[in-house]
């Protein structure tokens, strides 16, 4: 596995072209344009231990309040339990870009972000995930560097799980808070040279997502390679595969495929 990662990274950094920072699994320090509204749907097909696939869909609406502030509203639906697709919860997310150093074809930016989520799923794993599994909150910092068309982004956050609705208490035997860290690398593979806004752009990305449970030191690390298509400079289709590299905590379905759709409506609000 390590060999594959190294080959992938070498491949991603050796090919000369332009890069993207619109990552699949993480948010960059940059925001949406002010006044823009984005709609997004993350579809996940995750393998359960018995080999069956469960389906999660997380529709999201995003709004660029100003150049520095943006908010997301998201809901979580899953077919994990019997009886078809069920709504399990929702979340509100906000990001504030507090630092920007921009030059020709490059930038370094930093942002603070926070999320608050509600969830009514049963608590069935050690892993804390306020995006779809746990009621709780997350707060963190993200830094994104774009140099000569290669984007690298890294984040560090604190995440705390509370009791799930309606009365799924968070197990006292588990750590209810965690430290998360991510590293994302993105590169534009096509086109080599832009000719119009209608050209489809293809980005190759690789993200690493890690979590450490603060109370007991249990941890995990996942790798998510992805391919992204940007259509008419306005729509996005992401294809990704999430693979657990290692884990010392219980997780029910860490591996699977993801398909994400996104569309941006520019200048909806002033």
């Amino acid at each position, binding site marked *: 596995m390590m060999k594959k990662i190294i080959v992938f990274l070498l491949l991603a950094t050796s090919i000369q072209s*332009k890069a993207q920072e619109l990552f699949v699994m993480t948010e960059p320090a940059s925001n949406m344009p002010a006044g823009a509204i984005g709609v997004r749907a993350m579809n996940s097909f995750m393998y359960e231990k018995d080999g069956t696939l469960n389906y999660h869909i997380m529709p999201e609406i995003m709004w660029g309040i100003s150049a520095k502030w943006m908010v997301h509203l998201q809901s979580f639906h899953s077919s994990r339990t019997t009886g078809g697709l069920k709504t399990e919860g929702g979340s509100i997310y906000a990001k504030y870009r507090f630092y920007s150093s921009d*030059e020709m074809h490059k930038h370094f930016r930093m942002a603070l972000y926070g999320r608050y989520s509600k969830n009514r799923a049963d608590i069935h794993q050690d892993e804390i995930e306020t995006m779809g599994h746990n009621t709780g909150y997350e707060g963190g910092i993200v830094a994104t560097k774009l140099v000569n068309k290669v984007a690298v982004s890294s984040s560090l956050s604190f995440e705390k799980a509370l009791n799930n609705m309606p009365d799924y208490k968070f197990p006292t035997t588990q750590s209810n808070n965690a430290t998360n860290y991510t590293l994302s690398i993105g590169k534009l593979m096509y086109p080599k040279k832009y000719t119009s806004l209608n050209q489809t752009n293809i980005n190759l990305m690789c993200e690493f997502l890690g979590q450490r449970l603060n109370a007991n030191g249990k941890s995990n690390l996942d790798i998510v390679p992805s391919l992204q298509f940007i259509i008419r400079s306005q729509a996005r289709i992401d294809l990704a595969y999430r693979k657990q590299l290692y884990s010392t905590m219980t997780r029910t379905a860490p591996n699977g495929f993801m398909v994400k759709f996104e569309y941006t409506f*520019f200048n909806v609000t002033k």
Partner: protein
Amino acid sequence: MLLNFYKMNKIILVTAMLVSTFISNAQIAKVEIMATGLTCSMCSNAINKQLKTLAEVEKVDIDLNKNLFLITLKKDNQLTPKTFKDKVEKAGFFVGSMVLFMHFNNQTVEDNKQIDKYIFIDTKAQTLNGLTKVKLLDKGYVTTKEYKKLSQRFVKYTSYNNDNEQDFHLKAM
């Protein structure tokens, strides 16, 4: 009474003529912006869409590889450079350079001469006529690195380091 009426009319006429020369002097025909901090076409599109919200904009031509935006404006617009800077920043990016294409009518300029809200600096005495390119030198209209250099070079122009967003420092190109 009649004479007074004529006098008044003359004054109005002269004032109107003065105002119209002054307007034609400050009239921007085109703006060329190099935006910083981006490489992707979706980012360029964000700037493009912001610029097109201005009713005074006739068209926007984009060089996606160089992040250059050439904005053609409708006649008799009253826009100032700040409008364009604000639009680029609302899209989430910054202005790396801004060149204005302005109409001049035998306008004499010299170093540190102010015409309306525009102050010519680093400029030799000359007469500007017809469509002329001028480059903005203020903070926010050049890259951060360039501004650091310019703020030292232009210490002698007291207005330059004032950070006043109402006046603009230009260099005739």
